[in-house]
């Protein structure tokens, strides 16, 4: 356990009803601000917060695995080795890693169409995830679900979803069953900015509010729903503000900072476990790659992308870790090698796995 420098933004959310709950995010310790920067038009700043060095290194490692995994998948798809479609989470690694780091083993996680990162961060096996993308029997769903439908119930990871917002109600149900069974589990629900305009988002937040269910909503606002900029899809600046309509807190955090995300989720998880209900955490981030294969990205400029790349969460974390002396260049190289090996092992595993037997097609429709 040591002190290390990380990012923690000063985003202000008008929806934060109970200011004190969030003080450890907003002012994680009494040390003064050290550096300002601009992100998506807001002034943010670095602060020192209490954080185990090892934890940060772990985060960095997992973020690297996600990044390399997604880059590899993009490659495999564009080469036609892997069929179908995929939605890479490149640029959004900090949300997945920070949020999952705040959970306990039994907790539930629901994911999205852009879910490889969530699954990896939750401890999913890269080999079986990759095999699923290859449509192989050894994949998490035996090749049936593909990129958008993968789960590991033993990890509490209830799966991605091909319907935008599709797993938001599932999270309600997982939390409800936790409550009915008086377990200490909570449900963490990942979803995108686009999903926040689905009707089931509204219905779910209201149900969770009136039933005081232990849900932590993690909105990955990556600034776009496919080609739709958040500015066109919302008449409000912060999605977190919608929480007020349901009577629970909404907060905005820097989604490119794993620690900011982690602290926010920890606080929300604690709240949920205490029976105090839900929290909506909006993580502002950016999808650095295209929406899916074939996206020409006509709806945004290369300049905007370059600005966003400057805030790449992996670069920022590395910079910070090395500025702090926590991570040497050598360590960095070996961490990256390690992450690349995880990914290439996964590819090898997937390649060497068998396709499902077509005669099993009709098996398992019913339990």
């Amino acid at each position, binding site marked *: 356990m040591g002190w290390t420098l990380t990012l923690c933004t000063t985003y202000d959310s008008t929806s934060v009803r109970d200011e004190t709950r969030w003080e450890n995010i907003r002012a994680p310790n009494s040390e003064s601000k050290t550096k300002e920067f601009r992100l998506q038009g807001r002034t943010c700043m670095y602060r020192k917060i209490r954080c185990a060095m090892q934890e940060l290194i772990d985060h960095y490692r997992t973020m690297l695995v996600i990044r390399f995994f997604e880059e590899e998948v993009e490659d495999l798809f564009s080469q036609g080795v892997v069929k179908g479609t995929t939605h890479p989470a490149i640029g959004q690694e900090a949300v997945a890693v920070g949020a999952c780091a705040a959970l306990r083993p039994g907790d539930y996680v629901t994911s999205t169409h852009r879910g490889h990162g969530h699954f990896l961060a939750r401890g999913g096996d890269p080999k079986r995830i990759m095999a699923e993308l290859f449509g192989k029997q050894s994949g998490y*769903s035996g090749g049936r679900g593909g990129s958008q439908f993968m789960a590991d119930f033993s990890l509490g990871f209830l799966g991605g979803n091909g319907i935008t917002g599709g797993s938001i*109600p*599932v999270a309600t*149900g*997982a939390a409800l*069953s936790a409550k009915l069974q008086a377990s200490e589990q909570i449900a963490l629900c990942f979803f995108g900015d686009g999903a926040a305009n689905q009707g089931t988002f509204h219905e779910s937040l209201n149900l969770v509010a009136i039933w005081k269910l232990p849900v932590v909503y993690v909105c990955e606002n990556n600034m776009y729903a496919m080609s739709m900029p958040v500015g066109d899809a919302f008449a409000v600046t912060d999605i977190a503000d919608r929480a007020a309509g349901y009577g629970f807190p909404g907060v905005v955090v820097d989604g490119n900072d794993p620690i900011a995300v982690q602290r926010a989720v920890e606080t929300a998880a604690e709240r949920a476990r205490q029976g105090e209900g839900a929290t909506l955490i909006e993580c502002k981030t950016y999808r650095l790659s295209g929406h899916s294969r074939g996206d020409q990205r006509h709806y945004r400029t290369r300049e905007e992308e370059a600005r966003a790349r400057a805030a790449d969460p992996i670069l920022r974390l590395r910079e910070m870790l090395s500025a702090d002396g926590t991570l040497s260049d050598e360590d960095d190289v070996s961490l990256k090698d390690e992450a690349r090996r995880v990914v290439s092992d996964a590819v090898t595993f997937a390649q060497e796995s068998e396709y499902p037997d077509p005669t099993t097609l009709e098996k398992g429709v*019913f*339990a």
Partner: protein
Amino acid sequence: MREISYTDALREALREEMARDATVFVLGEDIAEYGGAFGVTRGLLDAYGSQRVLNTPISEPGFTGAAIGAALTGTRPVVEIMFMDFIGLVTDQLVNQAAKLHYVLGEQAPCPLVVRTAGGGGRCYGPTHSQTLEAWFMHVPGIKIVVPSTPADAKGLLKTAIRDDNPVLFIEHKMLYSRRGNVLEGDAALLPFGRARCITEGDDLTMIAWSWMSAEAEAAAKELEAGGVSVDLFDPRTLAPLDMAPLEESVRKTGRALIVEEGCRTAGVSAEIACRLFECVHEYLDAPIRRLASPDVPVPASPVLEEAMIPDRNAIVQAAIELVQS
């Protein structure tokens, strides 16, 4: 054996299963104090408390989706969708989530969900409170469909539905809630899915009808019997799974079949049943299979129009006579 109403039979099934298994809970609009629009859940709140009898806001997709999430994580939710007409609001939830997740997530978790709903017309409730829509769900792999017509079937099949590890669409009928009949207690009441019930036996004609139409067909069969036409009348009771064997056997015997459906004719359940019969026993048919169904129109509110639309015992008798004479 006691004679009770279809409503009471349903309530008994819920009570018994809730008593037997603490993971069973019910949720839906106005099911707590109010007891549900048709009174089925009356008294459950007092018996099992507000943790297991959950009134929901008017958010059908949201609470059905929540039930799916709960079903995937170790509980057995029983959802009430007040009128079957509202099932269009939860089609995505039933089709893309409930019916698929077990298969597409590699058989990791069952989804033991029951969705109870009140279907059909006959009460002049108008276009969005009278529809018969089971045909859609026969076309959906991964979901079972129950269409009980008697108190015994209602109780026995609801208990089975709750114990089933799969999503079950359980379609009650608003014209049957007051129907009375004998029911058993506890496990003795259980009835298996996929087992058609033979209501009357006869040689002249095979008749197939479910839900309210089964009751109308029963009345029609009596009338026909009196007129010298003897009917082999079957109620499939579950449409998925569908018990074709006794129907096929009957058609081999009678050579004629009439399928009675309350829903609209085109692409209805009768088309599937007729097709399967044609495929298997066409060489025994003395006349084309006849589908008697509602015409392809929305269900109007006006009593004269609704009556003109939905097949009743008279229409069934007439169709049967035409068929045996053809």
